[in-house]
């Protein structure tokens, strides 16, 4: 297989994203990021709620 054939095959294999696809991917990524951030906050708050006053009651 010569070098030109090899580069053509790679060209076929590389996905081409349109502007619209890129925009939607950015939107999805932002949605995932916000969801993960909200989950972190939720887990933190629930931990505080479950521990209650014991949060302050620890050996220093």
């Amino acid at each position, binding site marked *: 297989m010569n070098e030109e054939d*090899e580069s053509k*095959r790679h060209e*076929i*294999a*590389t*996905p*081409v*994203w349109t502007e*619209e*696809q890129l925009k*939607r*991917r950015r*939107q*999805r990524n*932002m*949605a995932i990021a916000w969801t993960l951030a909200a989950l972190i906050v*939720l*887990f933190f*708050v*629930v931990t505080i*709620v479950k521990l209650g006053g014991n949060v302050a009651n620890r050996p220093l």
Partner: protein
Amino acid sequence: MSDRAISTESFDAHALTDGGMGSARDFFELLKPRVMSLVIFTALVGLAVAPGAIHPVLAFTALLCIAVGAGASGALNMWYDADIDARMARTANRPIPAGRVTPGEAAAFGSILSVFSVMTMGVLVNWVAAALLAFTIFFYLVVYTMWLKRRTPQNIVIGGAAGAFPPMIGWAAVTGSLSIEPVVLFLIIFMWTPPHFWALALYRSGDYEKVGVPMLPVVAGAAATRRQILLYSALLVPVTLLPAALGFAGMLYAGAAAALGACFLWLAFSLWRSPAGAQDKAAKRLFAYSILYLFLVFSLLLAEKTLGLAPLQPILAL
């Protein structure tokens, strides 16, 4: 590089270019938000009428898990039913048949959210509620969507159980256990589902027939469906009075549920007696009322609890 490796790489490239078209809104649509809203509401009522207290943050977490779990099962349902959704007018514009989301993306999305909602419920709320949520997702996907929906006209009778579980999950989130009261809430939705869906199926039977889903009007005909709707409505109304009879709802609930039930029965009766030409109109009226009816029945339970109204003395002991 071998030819085999190249062909695999090409396939992956196609998968990438074929996918990735869905917007965040399309993925939200996969969660069936309208169905989800009724699920959240009935779960909230189960949570509110349960004895004992739950911290508002934990209550919010439980409702969030129930909402996400219900949405995940909706996404998995859309993944499995994409072939028939594409051929029905009501569902043809859903994200998968419309080509905005690939089946693989929907399956992955639904699976991840299912696991995540159940695990979060277990870790943050309790494992009884988590187990019930897992069973609900399993029931909706496997028992209803994969097994019953395309095989039997009783599909929505048995499959309706999946939509009836949320108040039980809400109750279990507070108490960590189950008793007769959440089972009664389950029964109300369970008995409500057949007349609700069959009313819809009556004026959409052409769609179901086209794709070979054996809804009752397709298999048994409109007259038999109208009879079954009346029968289930007659069973539904006494079931909605059980909360008062068992002593966990008061006078306001009993009176209003009886009046709302009488109206439901009247609409079911009108549908049963309607001449062929007026059937669709009567079915649409019953379908629209059935949504309002369930919302009001559960709202009454919530209102009584919120207002602190005393429940009636139980006349049934189970």
